[in-house]
């Protein structure tokens, strides 16, 4: 037995309990939460055994919002107060919403803010708040099932979500009181669930058609590494559009005018969705719509009629497929399998057309509704530190090119689409007038050469440039995109070091103040107060840092630090421990900053050591291959 207990110094298993982590698929139509238990990923059901939570929130006057099936029951009777498909509004501006127009039977509040707000009987709500309600229910479900608080979650987003949409999703999770370990792209999550299950190797395409979004990703799977080669899609294309196509067909057939009342519209959409689902098995379905009391329209929709209605939508999804393959530099023949994800891939015509396009039958053996949540759960388990020996590594890409506006309204790309994340890239720019001392930097996203064809992400200003002749200043603009796909931009005048930077808060996002207000509103003032909450947050941060430094010291402290350096770190840890015991939030914050600074050099040495070891280790395995 003694032999089994031997362990190398520094490799002692981490003395902590298993962390509770979950994966959340926040979908347009349905949402799910999953976790890994006893090594197996599984979705969690509510008390009535239902796994799918309809992404619907019902706001009644003077009552807490209801979510899911209960809320969905109100969709037809009380459409203005029943918010469905809110994902379509995440990170969108007021103008985008106008464009979606008649597809959304809600009342929008006139507001100064760039973010659309919906008027309900319970007050005005933003899409972020509606999403937070859905997340809260999933959080409660997970905590009730697992009997513990969640330490962290992975929330999935469509790969084609832009910076604003990602930020909005993260804000919603924050509002729901969740610690987001990572935003994970849905097709990548599906590939993880599928790939680990099937020991897959080679090039895979994930075709993900959900309720409101379409994504396609081309991935190379190699010994646990999931490398996304390219991604594409349409963040406003999905099963909802099929429902609308069918509903519009019914309206034409039944001579219903364009200005039908919202309740009739909702009923039509519900009937359309049911007809679409039944046509997965049946060849034709009978339809009946009550237009007015005593006035009923009857009709039949056949599968071939349905196919004709949805063909243009499917066609729209194939162009991004073609482009993703081209961006990945992969030929059709090189694709090993096509994995179908998302409820809308149940439609036979979708399978047929996708199969034709890729010249092979697509894989449909995994539940397209659950696979994304399962993949997210696996990744959450890894990120929480429950699988220290895993080989799994996800390398994702940014879906859209990022750049800045230059003279003449041109968009200069700094990070092209499909660049592996994280990425940090700089480019030098200059002034165009003599004596110019400031400039405004306009960050844009998109593939067009003209700024007018791109989406505006943010604007910020750099001041204090010394007066020089036009073209003499050297301003380096640095873009950094983290593993979540979120962008930060900084600008620095090279000769004087004048600096300006922002975490890009999208033009269509909520401001920090707005989020703060919502957070404050959401706190139950009777049992909780802001100061206590902030103190607790600092304590959690302190514990996490102490834990991380402790692990690092046990692993590499002896090898990489001399006595003086070690003593300095020990002292900083001790200060943080004592501060953490106190009630002074500020003191904890300062002690965290101090320990962070003291360990900077150590952290950097550890990473370089890791790199060195990786290369030597690699050389040995390369020799073995010969």
């Amino acid at each position, binding site marked *: 037995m003694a032999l089994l207990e031997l362990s190398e110094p520094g490799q002692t298993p981490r003395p902590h309990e298993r962390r509770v982590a979950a994966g959340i698929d926040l979908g347009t139509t349905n949402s799910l939460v999953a976790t890994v238990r006893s090594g197996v990923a599984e979705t969690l059901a509510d008390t009535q055994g239902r796994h799918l939570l309809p992404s619907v929130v019902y706001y009644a006057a003077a009552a807490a919002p209801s979510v899911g099936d209960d809320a969905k029951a109100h969709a037809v009777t009380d459409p203005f107060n029943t918010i469905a498909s809110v994902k379509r509004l995440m990170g969108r501006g007021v103008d985008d919403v106008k464009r979606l127009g008649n597809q959304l039977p809600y009342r929008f509040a006139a507001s100064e803010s760039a973010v659309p707000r919906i008027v309900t009987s319970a007050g005005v709500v933003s899409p972020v708040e509606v999403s937070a309600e859905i997340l809260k229910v999933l959080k409660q479900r997970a905590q009730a099932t697992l009997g513990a608080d969640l330490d962290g979650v992975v929330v999935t987003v469509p790969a084609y979500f832009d910076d604003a949409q990602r930020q909005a999703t993260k804000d919603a999770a924050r509002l729901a009181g969740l610690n987001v370990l990572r935003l994970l792209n849905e097709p990548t999550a599906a590939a993880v669930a599928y790939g680990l299950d099937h020991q897959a190797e080679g090039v895979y395409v994930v075709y993900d058609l959900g309720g409101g979004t379409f994504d396609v990703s081309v991935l190379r799977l190699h010994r646990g590494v999931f490398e996304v080669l390219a991604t594409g899609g349409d963040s406003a294309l999905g099963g909802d559009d099929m429902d609308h196509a069918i509903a519009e067909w019914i309206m034409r057939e039944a001579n219903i005018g364009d200005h039908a009342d919202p309740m009739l519209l909702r009923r039509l959409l519900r009937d359309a969705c049911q007809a679409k689902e039944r046509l997965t098995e049946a060849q034709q379905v009978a339809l009946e719509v009550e237009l007015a009391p005593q006035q009923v329209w009857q009709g039949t929709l056949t599968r071939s009629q349905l196919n004709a209605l949805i063909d243009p939508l499917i066609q729209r999804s194939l162009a991004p497929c073609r482009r993703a393959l081209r961006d990945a530099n992969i030929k059709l023949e090189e694709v090993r399998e096509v994995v179908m994800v998302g409820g809308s891939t149940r439609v036979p015509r979708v399978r047929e057309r996708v199969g034709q396009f890729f010249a092979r039958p697509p894989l449909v053996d995994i539940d397209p509704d659950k696979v994304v949540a399962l993949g997210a759960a696996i990744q959450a388990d890894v990120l929480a530190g429950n699988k220290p020996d895993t080989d799994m*590594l996800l390398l994702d890409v940014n879906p859209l090119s990022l750049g800045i506006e230059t003279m003449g309204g041109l968009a200069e790309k700094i990070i092209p689409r499909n660049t592996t994340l994280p990425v940090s890239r700089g480019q030098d720019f200059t002034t165009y007038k003599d004596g110019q001392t400031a400039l*405004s930097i306009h960050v844009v996203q998109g593939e067009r050469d003209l700024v007018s064809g791109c989406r505006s992400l943010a604007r910020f200003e750099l001041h204090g440039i010394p007066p020089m002749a036009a073209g003499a200043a050297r301003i380096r603009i640095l873009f950094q995109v983290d593993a979540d796909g979120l962008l930060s931009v900084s600008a620095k005048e090279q000769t004087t070091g004048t600096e300006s930077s922002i975490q890009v808060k999208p033009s269509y996002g909520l401001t920090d103040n707005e989020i703060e207000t919502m957070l404050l509103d959401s706190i139950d003032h009777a049992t909780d107060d802001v100061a206590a909450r902030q103190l607790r947050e600092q304590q959690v941060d302190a514990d996490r840092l102490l834990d991380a430094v402790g692990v690092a010291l046990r692993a590499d402290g002896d090898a990489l630090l001399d006595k003086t350096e070690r003593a300095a770190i020990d002292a900083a840890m001790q200060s943080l421990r004592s501060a953490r015991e106190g009630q002074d939030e500020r003191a904890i914050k300062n002690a965290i900053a101090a320990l962070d600074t003291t360990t900077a050099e150590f952290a*950097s040495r550890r990473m370089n050591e890791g790199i060195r070891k990786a290369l030597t280790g690699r050389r040995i395995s390369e020799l073995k291959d010969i």
Partner: protein
Amino acid sequence: MRKIPAVVVKASRSKVFSDGAVSNSARNFFEIFDLTPGFAIDLALLTGRYRELQRQVHPDKYAQGSDQERRLAVQMAANINDAFRTLKDPVERASYLLHLHEISVDDQSARRLDPEFLLEQMELREALGEVRNNRQAVHELTKIFTTIDTLEQQTLGTLAEAFARGDAASLRTANENVQKLRFINKLRAEAEEVEVQISS
């Protein structure tokens, strides 16, 4: 108050190569992967080492780490990504090698491409324009792609030879061929666009 100009002007055509975001690892891209600098590299070896390095430094490995570690991980992983992206692509790799030799591929004065090459480019572009206007000419497009492929292979061959010789005159040849490859790549991208237009 005077309104601040809403735009900036590009300083130069030259690209900013990151010089190692982390202070004590200011190594060149080849050193990062422990490879000998040169145009001829073993792509499988590069890819294998890239994956091993990312396994070590990717920010996901530090999800439970300190802020310090996570910031460092993002910087190092970004640096490794940049190095890999540059070295795996022949045109980028060649540009970077020239950069290490302190030759800027974007230097306008160095642009003296032979007229024969430019003429051929113009002809190909015209042919592409005809395909765009006349969708029946699909077989013409296949011919254009074949011509582009052949041209690319020839140019890459010349480039490899030039780097293998490595003297000052050869580096000038290399630079010229990098310019040519950029023309060729741009043309291929346009041809692919036309292909998409035709097939949709």
